């Protein structure tokens, strides 16, 4: 079956611009997560949705970052006034509800801020 998909696969933008990154989770998965992976590092948690609501947004680095999941399926990560330090791979994962359930990751969106 289809896995987690993310678009675009690559995004190049200029410092100061606004970007949106999209995640399509596995059908039926109520939990959705965003992580950020910098070069040579492990993924770092950004935000976790259970259904439409953000259950934990403690990983968002500042108020330039915002994420939505209005209908409980597709999610969009929005970054305002991008900075060069935002350059990273943004990973999305989804899972069924429940602590023992596996998080399935998408291929990521590689964001480059020039």
């Amino acid at each position, binding site marked *: 079956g289809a896995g987690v998909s993310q678009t675009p696969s690559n995004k190049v933008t200029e410092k100061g611009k606004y970007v949106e990154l999209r995640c399509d989770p596995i059908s039926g998965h109520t939990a959705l997560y965003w992580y950020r992976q910098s070069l040579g590092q492990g993924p770092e948690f950004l935000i976790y949705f259970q259904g439409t609501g953000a259950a934990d947004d403690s990983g968002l680095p500042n108020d330039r970052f915002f994420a939505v999941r209005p209908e409980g399926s597709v999610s969009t990560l929005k970054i305002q006034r991008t900075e060069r330090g935002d350059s990273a791979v943004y990973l999305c994962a989804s899972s069924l509800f429940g602590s023992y359930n596996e*998080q399935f990751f998408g291929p990521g969106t590689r964001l480059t801020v020039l």
Partner: protein
Amino acid sequence: QKEVEQDPGPLSVPEGAIVSLNCTYSNSAFQYFMWYRQYSRKGPELLMYTYSSGNKEDGRFTAQVDKSSKYISLFIRDSQPSDSATYLCAMKDLQGGSEKLVFGKGTKLTVNP
């Protein structure tokens, strides 16, 4: 000090070798322990998932958890060139109802034919 420490390597071994990968952690609240494999320019994929201290085996892979020492390991037997990837340990802290994973840096493994 980071919550999860993992030696980034790189680690290079000949085909057929036994590989040992390790992570230490500081947060006693971690309850679930995972190993993910990540190929270049791909998302992580789950290899092993354990809850309690002890060993769990799946084919050529064995995961060990020692909660008293806050130490987890992944062993790969009869390593193959297709095992060449970055291996990430990850842990889950359920405090506050979050399901977030905390990852190590990852260890880059190369298995040479």
